[in-house]
C-alpha cells in the first residue's frame, strides 16, 4: 500500500490543470469522507492480498492463458468472499457525492468535452450497468481516464484503478478483473 492519506488530502480535489478547473480545497468534512473511503479501499486490498496469497503467483514470463487463469481464479475467490457486496460499500454515499461534484466540475469545465471524447473513443455505448463484485465485461475495452480526472481523485494502491464503464466511474481490480464498486452515471 502506498502512503495515501497525506497524498489524498494534499493531491485530491485541489486542482485539475488539464481541464483548468480549480477545485476548492477539501473541507474537514470532505477529508473525513475521503479517509473513510480510503479505509474501505484498504479493507478491500487486505482481502485481495489475502486471497491472492492462496493461489500460485503469476510467473514473470506468463502465457496469455496463465494470465487469464490467474485472473479468473482470483476473481472467483473475491466474488465468493464478497458475496452480497452492494454498491456504496467502498464509494460511500459521501464519497459518491464528492466524486460526482468533482467530475461534474471537470466535465463541464474547459476541456471537458474533449475528455469525454477521449473516454468514449474506443467504445461509444454509455448505457451500461456495472455489477458490483462482478467481472468486468470482456468485450468492452478499458477506457482511458484523463490525467485531470486522476489528479482530482484520491490516489489508489497499485492493485486498484479508476476506470469508466459507460458513464459510470468504476473501481476496478485489474488483477482479478472485478468491479469492486462504482458510482452510477458519474459523467454528466
Amino acid at each position: 500500500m502506498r502512503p495515501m492519506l497525506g497524498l489524498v488530502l494534499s493531491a485530491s480535489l485541489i486542482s485539475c490543470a488539464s481541464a483548468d478547473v480549480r477545485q476548492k480545497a477539501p473541507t474537514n468534512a470532505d477529508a473525513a469522507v475521503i479517509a473513510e473511503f480510503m479505509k474501505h479501499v484498504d479493507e478491500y486490498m487486505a482481502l485481495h492480498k489475502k486471497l491472492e496469497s492462496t493461489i500460485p503467483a503469476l510467473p514473470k514470463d506468463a502465457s496469455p492463458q496463465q494470465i487469464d487463469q490467474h485472473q479468473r481464479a482470483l476473481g472467483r475467490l473475491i466474488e465468493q468472499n464478497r458475496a452480497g457486496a452492494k454498491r456504496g460499500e467502498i464509494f460511500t454515499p459521501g464519497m459518491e457525492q464528492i466524486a460526482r461534484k468533482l467530475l461534474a466540475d471537470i466535465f463541464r469545465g474547459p476541456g471537458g468535452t474533449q475528455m469525454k471524447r477521449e473516454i468514449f473513443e474506443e467504445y461509444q455505448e454509455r448505457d451500461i450497468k456495472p455489477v458490483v463484485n462482478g467481472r468486468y465485461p470482456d468485450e468492452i475495452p478499458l477506457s482511458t481516464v484523463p490525467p485531470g480526472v486522476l489528479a482530482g481523485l484520491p490516489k489508489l494502491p497499485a492493485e486498484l484503478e479508476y476506470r469508466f464503464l459507460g458513464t459510470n466511474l468504476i473501481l476496478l481490480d485489474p488483477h482479478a478483473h472485478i468491479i469492486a464498486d462504482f458510482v452510477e452515471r458519474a459523467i454528466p
Partner: protein
Amino acid sequence: MRVRCLSSWAPVCALVAIVCCASVAPAGPATVTSAEAARAPRAVAAAPAQDLELPNKPDSLKFAVIGDNGNGEKRQYDIAEQMANWHGRFPYELVVMMGDNIYGSERPQDFIKKFEAPYKPLLDAGVKFYASLGNHDAREQRYYKNYNMEGKLYYSFKAPKQDVRFFALESTYPEPEQIEWFRKELEGSNEKWKICFWHHPLYSSARTHGSETRLRASLEPLLIKNNVSLVLNGHDHVYERIKPQNGIAYFVVGSSGQLREGDLRQGSPLTAKGNDRDNTFMLMEINGDELTFVAIDRGGKVFDSGVIKPRQPAK
C-alpha cells in the same frame, strides 16, 4: 552498407538521404537533420521508388519502434508485414512498444490476434519486444512473456552489446515512486545513449490529445539533467517528429495499428515532420555516435529519416 528493397514493395521503396550532422558540442543538443526536416509540417510526399540506405553495420544496435498497434485490424497486419519485410534486409533485434498494445478485450485469443499472429515472423526470428503500457492496456500485460517486462510496470534494460540503455515508463499513473525510480535509474546510467519510451507524449501537435504538460513538468527536468538523447511516445495516432526540445529528440509513433487521419495541427511550431495520412513504424540504428532513423508507412515508403547525435555530459 546499402540495403535494397527486394520485396514486392520495391517499387515504392524510398531513398533515405541521411544527412551528416554537425559535430556534437559539449552538453549540446541531440541534433536531428533530415533532407526534409522543417518543411511542410504534415505533408507526406510520395517518395519515388528508390533504395533505402542505412548503415546496417554488423555490430550496431538495430531496433524498431511501434505504438498504438494492437487493434487486430488490417492496418496493424499491414504494418507488421512491412516490419517483417524490412527485417529480412535490416535484421533488427528488438522492438520497443509505445503502449496500447492490446485494444479491447484481452482474452488469450486476443493476444494471438492482436500480437502473436501479426508479429509471428519476427517472434519466430527471435526478435524481442519490449513493451510499455498505454491507457487502454490492462496492467497484467506486464507478466506476458513476449513483452519482456518481467512483471514490472516500469523498467530499464541495456542493449545486448552496445553502449545504450532503454528506460520504459508507465505514464498513465506516473506516481511519485516511479518518478523517483526513474531519477535514480538515470543517474546511475553511464551509457552514452539513454533512450526513454512511454505512452503519453510530452510534445505532440495532434488535436485529440496533444502535449501532456503535467507529465512534462515531472519528467523533462530529469531528461535534460541526465543527458537523455531520445524520447519515444505514442497515444496520439499519428507520426510526428518533434523539433528538438531542450536538445532532446522526441517522436510520436502512435499509428502502427490505429490511425487518426488529419489529426495533426497544420503549421504547429513543434513539428519537424508529420504523417497523419497512413500507419507507420520506425527503424533505428545506433552505431557509435550516430543514431540513424527512418519512418516507414504501410506501403513500405520511407517518408522521414535523419541522424541523431547523443547528448553529452556537461563539462
